[in-house]
């Protein structure tokens, strides 16, 4: 069964004003349980608006959203419960930290769920371990930490609610390459351990290609395609025409093919590319 489903979902900003803008246009989607989905699209393509519909922060202008088969906005009182099911981590989540200690901040979500103190403690410590926050750090004020650490505490704050679906909006933006790799690695780890659905919004094709089982490409408020990475990157030319780059390694291999080398066109991670090259070199050495 699909955990998120949308039907003819549309959202318009500033209806009836000169600033009217269609941000999401007639989107039909079905997202299966346990998947790791990458959402890409350039700025203003509607990806951030789309994901805010999944936990009822935005009300669709028309169409509907189903979470676990339940239609949102039929009963407004249920929205809060839905928000515990679909955890949303905003861009630059460290700006929402507010408690005296990291522990308390991570506990904010679970406490709002009305869990027992024991359960809250268990969840906070488990999430902290999962996302690499030490016990000493938990007792510190979030404002004393480094940028990357703050980011992790903020993400942990949503993870600790153990949502069925975790949506992260550009969780690695503004971090250095090491911080990026760490955050994305930890999210992958989380997915592996919890087997929950994860949606990762990103600009970086590399990140998405490396981690996701399926990719959702948004363009001009519409879904351009929703498919496996192999199938998505096969449409390299179309992607480039809408201003999205395919991973660099895919581009290298596309060029190699254009130059007459017989290569698969399904190369989108550096690891796989390396393997192919090694194989080709080994074949050449064996030839003469």
């Amino acid at each position, binding site marked *: 069964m699909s955990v998120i489903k949308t039907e003819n979902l549309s959202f318009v900003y500033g209806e009836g004003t000169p600033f009217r803008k269609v941000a999401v246009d007639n989107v039909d989607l079905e997202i299966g349980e346990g998947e790791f989905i990458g959402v890409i699209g350039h700025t203003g393509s509607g990806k951030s608006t789309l994901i805010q519909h999944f936990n009822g922060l935005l009300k669709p202008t028309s169409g509907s959203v189903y979470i676990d088969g339940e239609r949102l906005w039929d009963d407004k009182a249920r929205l*809060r419960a839905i*928000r515990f099911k679909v955890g949303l981590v*905003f861009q630059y989540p460290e700006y*929402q930290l507010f408690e005296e200690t990291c522990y308390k901040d991570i506990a*904010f*979500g679970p406490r*709002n769920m009305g869990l027992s103190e024991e359960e809250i403690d268990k969840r906070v410590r488990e999430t902290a371990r999962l996302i690499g926050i030490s016990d000493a750090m938990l007792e510190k004020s979030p404002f004393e930490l480094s940028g990357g650490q703050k980011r992790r505490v903020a993400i942990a704050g*949503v993870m600790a609610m153990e949502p069925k679906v975790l949506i992260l909006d550009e969780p690695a933006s503004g971090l250095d390459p090491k911080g990026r790799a760490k955050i994305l690695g930890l999210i992958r780890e989380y997915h592996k351990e919890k087997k929950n659905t994860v949606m990762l919004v990103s600009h970086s094709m590399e990140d998405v290609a490396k981690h996701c089982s399926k990719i959702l490409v948004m363009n001009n408020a519409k879904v351009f395609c929703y498919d496996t990475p192999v199938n998505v990157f096969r449409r390299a030319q179309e992607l480039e025409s809408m201003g999205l780059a395919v991973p660099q390694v895919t581009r290298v291999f596309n060029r190699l093919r254009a130059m007459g080398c017989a290569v698969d066109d399904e190369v989108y991670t550096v690891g796989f590319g390396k393997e192919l090259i090694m194989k080709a070199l080994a074949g050449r050495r064996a030839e003469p």
Partner: protein
Amino acid sequence: MLKDITIGQFFPGTSPIHRMDSRVKLLLTIAFIVMLFLAGNIYSLCVGVAFTILIYVISRIPFRMILKSLKPIMPIIIFTSILNLFFVRSGDVYWEWKFIKITSEGVNTAVFMSIRIICLIIGSSLLTYTTSPIDLTDGLERLLSPLKKIKVPVHELAMMMTIALRFIPTLIEETDKIMSAQKARGADMETGSVFKRAKALIPILIPLFVSSFRRAEELALAMECRCYHGGEGRTRMKQLKMHLVDLIGALVVAAFIAGVVVVNRLVSQGAAV
């Protein structure tokens, strides 16, 4: 919800009123207020109303903006109307019940006062609708510059105002974002007692404060990097200049003020005869 606040909301346009010098507009707004208070009876007030309608027609500001600027002061209008309605006791009695008495004078004053307040608000809102905040503070700084002689930090005040105005939309956006983020973590801001709701604001206010301080620091640094050191010897890229439009505007306002005074006279003479 938060986007409904209209303080300092500029509505870009190219009408003659948009093109007027901000200093002139500021002075004319004061003149307009004087005009409304000069109007001593309902007839001369009609001249003021006509002026208000005229400037809105010229500026081509949409009608719903007017409604929007009136919304927050509706309670004040209603309150003063009720006060006038019940406490003015002279004139013919329309309706009486125990100690409550509604008289013709009372009704007249209530209507008169409401119209005056409405004109006052929507007329002076036009200043902020048709003048960008930057122009406005520029004009204000220029108008107040004589005060520098008595050591009033006019430039600093104007700069503070510019910055404050500039950051209102940014802060609103930021608040919206933080609210969404905390709602996503299950923060409940809509239900519960007043005390509970006030407490629910903490997760919003603290991040907002923190980011405001961060922003202020970044801005100060950026300004210093560009060698900002106060108003001393600072020149402007856009010099304020008077044009024909300003003169015409001033003349029109003067004509209307004269109109109000004349109508006042005529009516009082009519009453005397």
